[in-house]
């Protein structure tokens, strides 16, 4: 079942210069994306999930932000070393991105047809006629009725769900190998969200595209992901197959996140398991484990040294001192959810 590695991020560090000092937004992130899989990146605001995605696209604004360390490998190329011109060849044709807010990500003064065709004309040597045909084809694929006449319309003539479909069409028109979607359904209502998530699934089944889905909603993760990276304070604290993360979470933060979400089928009178406190300040990240201050299981060592990433079982990795053989075994063996 092991598929080919498509993208590999290794030791990525990104920081931003601001008036208040240097923010270390991403602090040593490593992961890989395989062909045809959906990798969900979850975490709360400010955990660095969007910055990681933008680093892959090299969309970090250069005057304030910088990739200070690490490599991003895609098809024998190191994306961190490419020139802007080389990068432009990749964006849209090999790797595409979908943003949360379609109203600001798309241009309101150009017809959606022009915006979809822009990518084709930029990357392929085809006539306008052919580009238009491809655009129509892609609009059909993302589920927009009457694509020929819709091409001539502007953004404001579409509803929120439709605009998201158009953004997906723009990202997908050159059939890239990787789609990066940054909170693509957060601004949508649940019934529309369900439609869009189904669309992602269908696109993947039909074309085998790999998807990186950035979200804070664990429900979305459960629905769409094969693998999950849980991020906290600029680091990946746990990663693994979706069932590992939901049924055998190892990191206290992952467990806290899962416990703080109410479920439709859960009992009402049990209080939600909240995580006390707030994430650390990334202007001055803590010396030890970033989660230690909020962690009910924190040991003395947690405040002093960063935990190493250990492998729990195949491709399930966690960065936590509780995994150390010298630490007490906290979780009831492989825990209640096992059955």
């Amino acid at each position, binding site marked *: 079942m092991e598929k080919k590695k498509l993208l590999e991020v290794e030791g990525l560090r990104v920081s931003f210069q601001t008036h208040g000092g240097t923010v270390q937004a991403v602090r040593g992130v490593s992961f890989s994306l395989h062909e045809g899989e959906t990798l969900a990146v979850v975490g709360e605001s400010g955990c660095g999930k969007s910055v990681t995605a933008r680093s892959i696209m090299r969309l970090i604004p250069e005057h304030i932000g910088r990739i200070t360390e690490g490599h991003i490998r895609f098809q024998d190329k190191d994306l961190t070393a490419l020139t802007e011109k080389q990068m432009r060849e990749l964006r849209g044709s090999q790797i595409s991105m979908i943003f949360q807010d379609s109203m600001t990500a798309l241009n309101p003064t150009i017809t959606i047809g022009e915006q979809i065709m822009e990518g084709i004309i930029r990357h392929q040597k085809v006539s306008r006629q052919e580009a238009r045909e491809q655009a129509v084809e892609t609009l059909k694929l993302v589920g927009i009725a009457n694509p020929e006449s819709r091409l001539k319309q502007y953004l404001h003539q579409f509803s929120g769900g439709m605009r998201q479909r158009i953004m997906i069409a723009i990202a997908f028109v050159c059939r890239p190998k990787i789609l990066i979607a940054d909170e693509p359904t957060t601004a949508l209502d*649940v019934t529309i969200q369900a439609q869009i998530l189904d669309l992602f699934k269908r696109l993947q089944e039909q074309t085998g595209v790999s998807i990186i889905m950035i979200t804070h909603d*664990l429900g979305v993760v459960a629905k769409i992901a094969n693998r999950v990276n849980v991020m906290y304070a600029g680091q990946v604290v746990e990663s693994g197959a979706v069932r590992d993360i939901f049924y055998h979470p190892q990191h206290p933060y992952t467990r806290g996140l*899962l416990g703080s*979400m109410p479920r439709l089928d859960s009992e*009402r009178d049990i209080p939600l398991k*909240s995580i006390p406190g*707030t994430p650390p300040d990334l202007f001055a990240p803590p010396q030890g484990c970033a989660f230690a201050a909020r962690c009910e299981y924190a040991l003395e060592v947690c405040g002093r040294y960063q935990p190493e990433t250990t492998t729990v079982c195949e491709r399930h990795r966690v960065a936590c001192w509780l995994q150390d053989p010298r630490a007490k075994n906290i979780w009831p063996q492989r825990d209640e959810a096992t059955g």
Partner: protein
Amino acid sequence: MGVRKLLEVNGLKRYFSLGKNQLLKAIDDVSFEIYEGETFGLVGESGCGKSTTGRTVIGLYPPTQGEVLYEGKNVHKLKGKELQRFNMKMQMIFQDPYASLNPRMIVADIITESMEINGSYSRRERHERAHELLEMVGLNKEHANRFPHEFSGGQRQRIGIARALASNPQMVIADEPISALDVSVQAQVVNLMKRLQRERNLSYLFIAHDLAMVKHISDRIGVMYLGNLVELTTSDQLYKNPKHPYTQALLSAIPVPDPDVELSRERIQIEGDVPSPINPPAGCVFRTRCPLAKPVCAEQKPVWQEVASQHYVACHLYN
């Protein structure tokens, strides 16, 4: 759950004029009651009129038709002392913890502004009360002299809650109080709201789009669609036995944080988008997306009726 009826909303309508003879029907016939000590959840997707309902109930908007009775008195006809008393008894918590606190006021003054308006408290009394309230919501009195920008979103929402509690209200309207917060912080705020409710016998009108969270906190839930209440029942009934096709679709559209459940789950798909409230469909407002629509749905507006004990639905399937 108490039995005393605190709030009664009867046939409430609220239209907004958009000029050119266009009328936006934000609320079109909504009726419900809230009892002492209970949490009534109001859910629906954006533009369904749930926030307008909250704002009309507390008197921020006058109704176009219908009435809101609080302890038997029409909220929109109160004047003078009676209005002031009502304003103390019903308070509101807002969605945006950044926009709803005045950035130029210190926390102690924000929290006790209602006491200042009341006029019968000294500055010292107010600040003592602010300290007490801050501790009640899980902050401490050192926070009283700071400005809102010094706090995180979750802490600000606690300040908003402390402000709502300053006048010792009986009822609090919470309009999406947690949707701007991160998941782990949402749980903190919801647990706080539940604790305060137990301690002070508060009634909540909890407005939100997150049905899982609304179910967690509410005793009874009303589901709104395009300005209409389509279903109302206890939160267990709503989850176990939803009657209205919209409620069924809404429940099945919410992704459950459990991959195996997600895999095996059957979904009721509804197509398309919510129609505009400017020219809502005639008859049943949901019929344009309803998988079970019949011809009668286009002709007549369904009647709001009790189909089982404490279970109200407006749908032609149950006529």
